[in-house]
Every structure is written in structure tokens, then in C-alpha cells.
């Protein structure tokens, strides 16, 4: 099969330390912090107060807004505090701290969707919404919203994103190897909701085991195809993936559904399957704890588990580690404390020893950033525009098209934090618009 790809991008060392490590169950945490804002969209209101007893899977926060996703207790125990806690993305955020007591009990209200309702797209969508499913690839956009395209935008293609192009991370890879059939069941649910036929399962060529597994799973399925992509970053970026597979370009400022495509992460498909067939809300997920920890692992963890508990379970940090990142090394977020909890968008916990100083050298306009940019903008020009505050040029140079993948900063010989400058430019434009 021909390997597909998009123009541009970079190929950092893959460092997939845990490709062959089966997913392990992390020990049940003694306490969890369920943050109320875990998704892209409106924040949730807490539904519990200090002293309340909650079960595993009990709804503890929701919002009436359309773009939102409820949150659930991930253990059985007592609410000990509703307050401000460290947040891996936002710094701090409102959350609910729960302490475990005794045996695990599932919330009695949790029921799978009835057989007849499983044929009804509206009921399926409602269930996905109520179970708090969000995109598990990292962006955490509410899945029910993504699966509700306006009626004037017909969808013809569903892409299951199993690229996992960030170095180190292997959670999706392991899911495809171990849970392929359930992922495909999830895809079939999405197919019903969107009424599409064509499904691609996109996997980078450095995951042969996952490719084989998924090919086996779709043998009897019609309209499904495993697509092999070149191992390159950011191959799994939504726009890049669509461009590589279908040669269609998502319009600047638009969404994949504008060109008839919906992309869903493979982990999300599994979560959808479990929500519909098992009635399970999104209170756990699979992440990779990797890098400079003593025993890197793929773990199924409860949402709300503190990073430090998981790092301890993986044998602790190695000597001299100075960075702990939520996510991969290219787009992950450096954490200032290990007391942060896992959220729905946590794809991994990565410990690294960072030795480069943050000194920035002059830009020599070598244009390496231009050559690797997957969205064809001129990062070098944007850096200058921001440095010299030529705000009027921001739009002409398409600052808003940047997907912040970091390929430019990765190759910059002058170590200029290009993405950071571009984010400043975007923020300036946003403020101007207000």
C-alpha cells in the first residue's frame, strides 16, 4: 500500500519506549481531583458539596451550554473539598476532591443504551453527550458537538485518527493492538450518527502491530480501510491528516466538516463504544507514562489521579529530571507541580531532562521554519512582525492559520521560540477584535 503524507513537517526521534508494553491497570488512587473544566468550551458547575458520598461514575459537574461535557467521579468515596486546584492546562481551576472509602461501587443509574435506541442517531448522540465524551487525542473538544454537523454540510468520510505522531506516546497504538474490535464498534456508532459510509483508519507506518490488528478487525466490514501514513510530525494533525489521505484542504478558518470530513481519535471511538454498550461515562482513559521514569508504562488511569501517584507507580523519576510534561514533547504542556490531576485530554505524562538553555540567537532567515510549516505560513516573518510590533501585518501573514504544532521551533537553528511569538500575535489580534 502506498504510504501517504502531507508536505512539510519534521521527524524527531520517535522514542516510543512503550510500544510493546500491554496496557496495565493503574492502582485505584486514594484520592482524585476532578477538575470541572476539562474540555474545550463552557465550564461545568459543581453538583456536589463537601461531605457528599459519590459512586464511581456519579455525575458531579455539568453545564447547560451546548459546547460542554459533564464530568464524573472516578472513584467511590466522599467529597472532601470543592475548590481551586492545580490545573495542567489552565494553571489553576475549580475542582472536586474525592477521597476513596471502601469497595468500589458503580453508580446505580448507569445503564447501557437499550437495543432499539442504539439504532436511533439522536439517542446515540444524546448518550455520548451525557457520558461526557470528548476528543481524547488531546484537544478535548466535546464529541457530541463534533458529531452534530449542520444539516447543510453533508459528511462523506470518517477518519479514525490512530497516527499518534507525537514522539514517546503509545496509548493509541496499544489501544489499536488490544481493543481494535471495540474501536471499530465505536466507529460504527459514529457512522450511524453521521450517516457516512467511508471510514479510514489512519495509522503511521511505525506501528506495524497496530496496522495488522486493525486490518484484522475490519476484514468483514464494508467501506472501512486502513490507511498507512508516513511517520512524520504532525501527521495526526486534523488538517494534515485530511490533506494526506483525501487531498482536500480544510478551508482557512474553517472546520473539517466544511469539506465533508469528521476525524475522531481511536481512543474516543473506544470511549463511545463503552458509553453506548456498557453505559460507562468517561471516568478513565489510557495514557502513557514515559521518558525518564524508571519503568515507562501504558496505563489505564482514573481521571483525577495525581501525576505524582502515576509517576511513583512507574518507579519514580530518574536522577536529574527537570521537566514533566502533560502530553508529548512537541505540543505538551510543562507542569510546575506533580500535584496536578489527569484530565480527559491527558494523552501522557512525559519526564525529560532538558539541557538546552533558552537563549535566543538572531534569526538568519534560513527559512527552515517555512519549509517544515504544514500550513504554509511564514513563521520567520511572523516572529519579526511580533518583535517589531507591526500588528497591522499579522493578518496579511496569516497568523491565525498557525496550528501551533511547533515544527518551526523544532528546526530553528537560532532556538527562537517561534510558536510563542505566534501565540502572542494571535492574542493581540484577538484583543483587537474585541
Amino acid at each position: 500500500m502506498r504510504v501517504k503524507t502531507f508536505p512539510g513537517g519534521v521527524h524527531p526521534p520517535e522514542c516510543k519506549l512503550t510500544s510493546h508494553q500491554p496496557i496495565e491497570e493503574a492502582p485505584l488512587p486514594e484520592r482524585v481531583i476532578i477538575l470541572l473544566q476539562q474540555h474545550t468550551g463552557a465550564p461545568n458547575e459543581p453538583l456536589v458539596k463537601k461531605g457528599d458520598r459519590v459512586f464511581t461514575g456519579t455525575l458531579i459537574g455539568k453545564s447547560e451550554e451546548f459546547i460542554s461535557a459533564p464530568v464524573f467521579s472516578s472513584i467511590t468515596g466522599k467529597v472532601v473539598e470543592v475548590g481551586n486546584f492545580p490545573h495542567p492546562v489552565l494553571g489553576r481551576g475549580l475542582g472536586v476532591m474525592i477521597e476513596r472509602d471502601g469497595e468500589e461501587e458503580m453508580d446505580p443509574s448507569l445503564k447501557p443504551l437499550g437495543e432499539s435506541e442504539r439504532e436511533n442517531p439522536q439517542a446515540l448522540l444524546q448518550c455520548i453527550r451525557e457520558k461526557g465524551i470528548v476528543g481524547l487525542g488531546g484537544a478535548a473538544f466535546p464529541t457530541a458537538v463534533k458529531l452534530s454537523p449542520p444539516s447543510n454540510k453533508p459528511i462523506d468520510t470518517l477518519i479514525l485518527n490512530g497516527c499518534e505522531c507525537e514522539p514517546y506516546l503509545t496509548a493509541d497504538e496499544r489501544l489499536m493492538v488490544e481493543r481494535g474490535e471495540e474501536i471499530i464498534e465505536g466507529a460504527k456508532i459514529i457512522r450511524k450518527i453521521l450517516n457516512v459510509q467511508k471510514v479510514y483508519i489512519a495509522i503511521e507506518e511505525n506501528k506495524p502491530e497496530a496496522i495488522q490488528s486493525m486490518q484484522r478487525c475490519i476484514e468483514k466490514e464494508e467501506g472501512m480501510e486502513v490507511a498507512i501514513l508516513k511517520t512524520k510530525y504532525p501527521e495526526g494533525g486534523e488538517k494534515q491528516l485530511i490533506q494526506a489521505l483525501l487531498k482536500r484542504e480544510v478551508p482557512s478558518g474553517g472546520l473539517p466538516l466544511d469539506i465533508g470530513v469528521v476525524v475522531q481519535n481511536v481512543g474516543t471511538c473506544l470511549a463511545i463504544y463503552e458509553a453506548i454498550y456498557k453505559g460507562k461515562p468517561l471516568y478513565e482513559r489510557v495514557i502513557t507514562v514515559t521518558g525518564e521514569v524508571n519503568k515507562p508504562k501504558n496505563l489505564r488511569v482514573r481521571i483525577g489521579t495525581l501525576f505524582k501517584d502515576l509517576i511513583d507507580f512507574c518507579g519514580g523519576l530518574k536522577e536529574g529530571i527537570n521537566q514533566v510534561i502533560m502530553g508529548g514533547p512537541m505540543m505538551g504542556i510543562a507542569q510546575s507541580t506533580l500535584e496536578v490531576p489527569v484530565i480527559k485530554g491527558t494523552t501522557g505524562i512525559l519526564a525529560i531532562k532538558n539541557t538546552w538553555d533558552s537563549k535566543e540567537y538572531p534569526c538568519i532567515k534560513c527559512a527552515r521554519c517555512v519549509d517544515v510549516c504544514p500550513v504554509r505560513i511564514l513563521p520567520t516573518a511572523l516572529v519579526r512582525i511580533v518583535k517589531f510590533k507591526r500588528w497591522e501585518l499579522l493578518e496579511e501573514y496569516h497568523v491565525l492559520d498557525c496550528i501551533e504544532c511547533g515544527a518551526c521551533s523544532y528546526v530553528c537553528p537560532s532556538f527562537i521560540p517561534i510558536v510563542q511569538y505566534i501565540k502572542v500575535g494571535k492574542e493581540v489580534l484577538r484583543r483587537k477584535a474585541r
Partner: protein
Amino acid sequence: MREKVKLLIRTSPHIHSPITLSRLMYGVILALTPALLWGLYYFHLPALLLLLTCVSSTLITEALFRKVRGKEITLYDGSALLTGILLAMVLPPYLPLWMGALGGFIAISLGKEIFGGLGYNIFNPALVGRAFLSASFPVALTTWKVPLNHSWFSVDTVTQATPLATTLPKFGGGGSYPLYKLILGLHGGCMGETCGLALLVGGLILLIFRIIDYRIPLSCLLTVLVFSTIFYLREDNFPSPLFHLFSGGLLLGAFFMATDPVTSPVTKKGRWIFGAGMGFLIVCIRLWGGYPEGVMYSILIMNAFTPLINRLTLPLPLGGKK
């Protein structure tokens, strides 16, 4: 209890490719070495002295300017060193040393630091130095000597016109010149430009190690070949495309000067245009201009157009509408 870990907060990405500024500069210097060594071998001691003079001059000038401007002295990045080497390579090897020193001073001061230092200059610094010398000392800059005998320390020389000056029909030349002499570098000329083979090897090093992008040299050389072929076929006495390719400073210019990142376009389309414009100008100057060689002015002229080219070739972003 666990020991406290100090965690570093910085923005993504958290890993970096092995490319650094100084690696790029030293990479170019490495790629220049074959041609440089040939120049030193063929032109003997005076060439070495000129090289040392130019390099010391650029390094000292850069250090002085940085100091006066209260900036950190960044000689280790290799850029001033590279400018010095390039300057020496585009000067006649028997040039009085003080002229070389002056050229180095001008290259760094007027060519680079006055604009704000590395990354801000408009024109290729080494060529600014050469253009200044060429305007100030036209005779010295067109006096081409080659050593009379094989002793490295001998100062006996004979003056010899460059292949371009003897071959081009506008100077009464017959349009032909033994190609092997050009390829092997057995003729007079600037110190680093004579050996076509060594320059090609250097150019390949630049391309293989991805130090430069292929677009500028490729479009420049192709343009020269195509354009000169047309006149070679149409007119009597016009030199062959291969003569154009290997004579003068074309290979040195196309691989090492025009690809100076600071002074060439950042857009992909722009790089094609830059190279093609340069190639076109070179053939024009060579065939009809007042000078035998046009590489220097072609690059400087295209340098001036670079901001405009960038602006006009701004790419459409992914999914962008015209």
C-alpha cells in the same frame, strides 16, 4: 516522602533538532574547504596570507562593532569567520594585503553591523566588501597573477587574464577555452573560484547535509545553462554553456553566496525567482556588460530585490482562498 524536584517551565516544543546556528556556519566553511585548499595550493603563500588577513580583519571588526554597540561578542557563531573566508575567496590572490584588510572591515561594518548585525543585513557582506574594493581599486582587483614556478615560497608570478576575459567575444575572444582547465582550476582568477570540481564537491556537501536549499543554485545554474545555450547556438564565437558554468565565480556564487540565508528570499517560490533572476543577470553581464564577470553584481542586485520577492510570493496558507 519523595524528594522535591525542581521543574522547568518553558513553552513547547520541548525537544529540538540538532541544527544550530554555528553548525550551519561551520558546515558552510567545511564545504568551502576543497575549493579553498585548491586556491591555497595553486596560488601559494600569498593566497594564504590574504586569507589570514581577511579573516582577522572581519573577526576584529565584528568584535569591535559589537563592543561599541554594547552587544555580546558572538564570534563563536562562525558568521564573521565565514564572511572573511568568502571575501578572501572572491579576491585576486595576489592583492596587496592592506586592501584585503580594508575589504574585511567594509564587509562587516557596512555590510552587516550597520544594519544591526547578523540577520538584519540586506546585502551579502563578503560581496559588499568586494564591491567596495572593486570600485576603489579597479586595477588591483582585475590584475590576475599566477605563480611562475612550483615553489610554494616563490614570489615570481606572471600576469594572466581570466578565461572569461580571453574568451568572451565582446573582448575579441574566440569563444572557446579548454574545459578541463576550468574544471581542474588550472588558470588565473579569484582565489577560491578557479576549481570547478572542488566547488561542485562543496556544493554537494551543502545539499547532502541540508545546509542549503537546492532551489537557488538549481534555478540559477539552469537559467545560465538555458540562456547561454540559446546564444551559443545562435551566434558565432559565443562560449558554450559549459564554459559559462565552470568559468568565473558562478559555482562559488550559486552555491555559497546566493544561498546566504539572510539575504535571499524565505519563500520557496521566491527562491526559484531569486536564482533565475541571478542567472539571467549573470549571462547578460557576461555577454554584453562592461565587465567580464557578473556574478557579484547579479547577487547584489537580487539581494536588493529580496524583500520585494518575499512580499510578492507570500504563499497561500493551507486551505486559503485567493
